[in-house]
């Protein structure tokens, strides 16, 4: 992250003289795009680390099938956190209403299935993503004209409005009782979703893999580099000619789409949807997951969501208050002593240790 920040702050002053902005195709039309293009191969070079998560999923599937339903839940949360990281981590938009998109995806799948009998999982997943993405475009057009505290309040209030609306139309959404009996048809017409949850796990892993690769490529692209430039210094990016609003709208919509897919996946894996998919607790929770690990890092969402879900799984069994208390204390400590999250803090410590060892 420090590397990226350094690039985005130094590049605008040096590059415009060498590369005409109009010559750069693709998402990023600003001069920054050209500079980051040169680094892109490095940014996406894969190493053994990139195999770890998928190996873990395979091991859970093979050796610990009893945990398959829980593992699938974790993958849903990872995808949700990954979508938030695009807006919060890379573009620096602090939103407290991201659950709106998660809930839209979940209810789209649920209502298509229960009311219209649309059970084919992949098209339903796409529909969930499309609805959330479309709402993302529309709400982004309106809300992204604001920033800072007003934007935070608007995201909070609009998502609360959506929750009230879902509660009001309980004939469609099932209200507080939730929408149950979601029964996706077999994948590709052959592989059925079963009670063991093993199909769900593989399905969720496949969806996550596709989205993860997409996000990695997007964030390593000139477009992603430009977003981080906007996050770190919006005025400078405006000054060098970056269409800031267009970039923010694009990333907000993509993020909404991915959050919708994660919500859709949630509905299919759980077979039910309740109002809490739209709640403030869900918006706040996903932000917490991301922030405990660290923002705008390739494995921030995976680390944060996994830690959060696993610890919650065990502590909440002891007592829900125990979990809430522990999480609260952990958040306070992280903000006070490990600002930026656990991963960057650990890296700093390791770097300091190894620096000392060499001396």
């Amino acid at each position, binding site marked *: 992250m420090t590397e990226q920040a350094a690039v985005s702050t130094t590049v605008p002053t040096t590059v415009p003289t060498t590369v005409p902005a109009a010559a750069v195709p693709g998402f990023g039309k600003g001069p920054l795009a050209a500079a980051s293009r040169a680094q892109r191969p490095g940014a996406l070079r894969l190493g053994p680390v990139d195999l770890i998560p998928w190996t873990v999923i395979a091991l859970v599937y093979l050796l610990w099938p009893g945990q398959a339903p829980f593992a699938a839940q974790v993958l849903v949360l990872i995808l949700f956190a990954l979508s938030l990281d695009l807006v919060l981590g890379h573009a620096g938009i602090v939103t407290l209403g991201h659950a709106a998109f998660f809930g839209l995806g979940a209810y789209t799948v649920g209502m298509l299935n229960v009311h219209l009998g649309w059970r084919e999982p992949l098209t339903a997943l796409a529909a969930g993503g499309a609805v959330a993405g479309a709402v993302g475009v529309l709400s982004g057009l309106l809300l992204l004209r604001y920033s800072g505290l*007003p934007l935070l309040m608007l995201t909070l209030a*609009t998502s*609360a*409005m959506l929750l009230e609306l879902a509660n009001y139309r309980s004939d469609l959404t099932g209200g507080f009782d939730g929408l149950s009996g979601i029964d996706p048809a077999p994948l590709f017409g052959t592989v059925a979703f079963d009670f063991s949850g093993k199909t769900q796990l593989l399905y969720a892993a496949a969806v996550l893999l596709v989205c993860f690769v997409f996000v990695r490529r997007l964030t390593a692209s000139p477009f992603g580099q430009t977003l981080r430039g906007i996050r770190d210094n919006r005025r400078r990016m405006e000054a060098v000619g970056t269409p800031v609003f267009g970039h923010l709208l694009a990333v907000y919509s993509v993020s909404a789409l991915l959050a919708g897919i994660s919500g859709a996946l949630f509905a299919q894996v759980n077979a039910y949807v309740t109002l809490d998919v739209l709640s*403030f607790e869900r918006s706040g929770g996903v932000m917490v997951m991301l922030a405990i690990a660290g923002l705008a890092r390739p494995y921030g969402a995976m680390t944060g969501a996994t830690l959060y879900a696993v610890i919650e799984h065990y502590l909440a069994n002891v007592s829900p208050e125990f979990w809430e208390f522990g999480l*609260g*204390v952990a*958040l306070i400590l992280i903000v*006070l002593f490990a*600002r930026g999250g656990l991963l960057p803090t650990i890296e700093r410590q390791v770097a300091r240790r190894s620096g000392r060892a060499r001396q």
Partner: protein
Amino acid sequence: MTSAAHVLLTIAFDGLAYAMVLFVISAGLSVTMGMMGVINLAHGAFAAIGGYATVWLTAQAGLPFPLALLLAGALAAVLAVPAERWCYRPVYKADHLAHVLLSIGISLVVVAALTWLFGPSSHTIRMPDYLSGNVELLGVVVPVYRAAVIAVGLAFALALWLAIDKTTIGARIRAAVDNRDMAESVGIDVDRLFSITFALGCALAAIGGGLAVNILGVGPRFGLQYLVYFLVIVVVGGMGSVKGAFASALVIGVGENAGRYFLPQAGAFFMYGIAVVLLLVRPNGFFTRASTP
């Protein structure tokens, strides 16, 4: 009097009492947020502490209700001082995300602590005789308690307005809200001022929480449940403005109450709708005092 006017007046009184509770809690948040620039999602937690303290002090310790309210305020002020010193002060200059995470953390700790101490269910309070029953005002039968809450809310609004606009400490607070560096350079001890103001803001929250019990009830999640209301009132009113908080609490409290009366299924939909429109029109609030640096 016609029955329609009668109904409207009843709704107006109910809405006013509700608005006054929201105002007393939000006024504290408005001053602290305006002054310190911290997005404090844990303000409602202090209101919940105040609600529980009031219930406990009246039911277990047998204290009279007004005294219990004041003690609840004092308790919150005492708790607020270390919270400000060791949690909020280090993050004043940090970004919004740090504020949000820190105050969510504090909220969760309070929720867990209240659940441990008093159980997960919601609590109500028994009112003394002189605050029970009904009274007739303008030809409408109004519960005495609600009339009293309206009076107390108005008194608080007047007192706060006088305190902030007419006293020296109020002038110092306004100076620190407008420009912290400038205030420091003319010799105001801003750190100490922040401590005092934060404690007073939390005391207001606790008193508001105590007043709210007989209208809204209080549970461990009270703070999170009404969080959006407090924040919306503060931001719509303009951070740091008591006048603004009063006006927006009135609009939102009375408006939501009317919405719930005429279309009960829609719940808080109206409140959020009003809030979104107001925020879109005036993102920095209607009575903004602080000039954004």
